[in-house]
């Protein structure tokens, strides 16, 4: 078991964003985390990534308790994430963005030269090799998304959290993203994706978790989840279930 989340609860003032959510993730899984807006998906990511601690509950990575560790230590333990609203380093070049990930994070390299070589390989992998000297601020919104993914991959994560990575992508780009995520498994990277493109989630994931209003209402294989009447009612709607 790579990740175990135990009875995660988070309240913001009076608002209960997550309530007693538990699930586990196996190594090599592609887990889809779905649910309506405001159901607590990003909050769950923020807690797992150490952005803020939960009100109660635990996060265990490979059996070790990482609850409440600051984000930079969580990254060093092997969890990387993309942000729902991308946050590339705008005044740094694409190469520097990825190099920063390569020189920190999990399994960092100390040599600038080696970091540069490996960062170039990652830029090629995400299709930004030619733009390596371009400042991130001069990239398109889509390119920035890919760059942020490259920067996260550069930390050599065991677990990658992708928060609405496909939102706003064209159908071609969605396909590119899906085949890329498909390759992560071979690289030993486990992924949790938050997506609203239901078809993509169902195709990608071998396991789906459904949140609604801060509670887990279903989990299982994509087939099981898409037939679940609670899920249909809360999120998928009759139209998707009919397929």
């Amino acid at each position: 078991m790579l990740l175990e989340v135990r009875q995660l609860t988070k309240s913001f003032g009076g608002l209960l964003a997550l309530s007693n959510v538990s699930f586990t993730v196996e190594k090599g899984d592609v887990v889809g985390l779905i649910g309506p807006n405001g159901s607590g998906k990003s909050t769950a990511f923020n807690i797992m990534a150490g952005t803020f601690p939960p009100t109660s509950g635990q996060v265990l990575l490979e059996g070790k308790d990482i609850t409440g560790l600051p984000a930079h230590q969580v990254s060093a333990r092997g969890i990387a994430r993309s942000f729902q609203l991308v946050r590339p380093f705008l005044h740094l070049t694409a190469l520097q963005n990825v190099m920063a990930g390569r020189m920190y994070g999990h399994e960092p390299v100390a040599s600038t030269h080696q970091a540069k070589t490996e960062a170039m390989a990652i830029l090629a992998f995400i299709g930004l090799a030619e733009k390596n000297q371009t400042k991130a601020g001069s990239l398109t919104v889509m390119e920035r998304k890919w760059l942020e993914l490259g920067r996260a991959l550069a930390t050599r994560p065991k677990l990658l959290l992708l928060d609405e990575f496909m939102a706003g992508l064209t159908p071609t780009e969605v396909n590119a993203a899906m085949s890329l995520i498909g390759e992560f498994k071979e690289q030993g990277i486990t992924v949790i994706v938050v997506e609203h493109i239901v078809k993509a989630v169902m195709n990608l994931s071998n396991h789906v978790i459904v949140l609604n209003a801060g509670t887990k209402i279903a989990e299982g294989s994509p087939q099981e989840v898409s037939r679940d009447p609670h899920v249909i009612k809360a999120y998928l709607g009759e139209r998707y279930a009919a397929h």
Partner: protein
Amino acid sequence: MKYGGWLIAGVLLAALLVTPQLPFSNNKILTILIQLFIVAAMASSWNILAGFAGQVNLGHAAFFGLGALTTRLMWLDGYPLALSFVAGGLVAALFALAIGFPALRLRGIYFAIGTLALAEALNETVSNILPGNSALPGPQLVSYELPSRYYLALGVVLVVVAVAYWLTQARLGLGMMSVRENEAAAQAIGINAFRHKLWAFIISAFLAGITGSAFAYFHVSYYYQHTFTPLWTFDAVLVTFVGGVGTVAGPILGAIFFVVIRDVLATNLTNFHQVIFGVLFILVVLILPGGFLELWDRLRVRMTNSK
């Protein structure tokens, strides 16, 4: 850095090294150059924390003052100059370490206000405890000559620029710039934001401290409080922004421009340079956020495109 840049830097350095030996060299020229080195070192050291790590320190004068005070007192007390000089940097760095823990928890404008307040408190304290003037005693006055002051100040600015350049090539500097760009994203890729800000603060303070040390060795007579006045901070801020914040060459360019205006063109008009620099600062902030260096880059791009 490109080949041409290294060439210019090499020629400039060689010229600066031989300047005191040249026949036309005189005390006026050496004094202006020493002042240039001090302004450039102050700007460049300020830029390490503000330009690289993104933390606007409005109390930079405190580190200059602490370095100057430490060196002056030790040196005049009979300690070797080298020891007094290094001690100046260390005292400044230790002060940064001590105030860094609370101050760097403050964000953005609050950090700027906090450092300004701390430096002003120190300024007041020094003016109360040491209200007087520090003049060189007889023996030091008799042996006083400018070239050794010149070489010390030149050495200081070279060290500051070398450290700044090294940071642009090193992991530590990349981490600092990542923190400047986006703290949450930097943390998410494993960068300890607080530690990087603290390192930037300590390095910046040490370098401002030894700049103060060079000032203490250079000046024959000055009020102790003079080195703690906020003007040292504001000059460094203006010079850095006008030259190009966050770059290695920017603070140097800005300093050259500043000293040319202050000590060469406007010697008869007191504080006229501040008016010019105030206006330039506003223009830069409004229309040219990259300073002179960006203007230069834009011109170069236009020239290569029109070829």
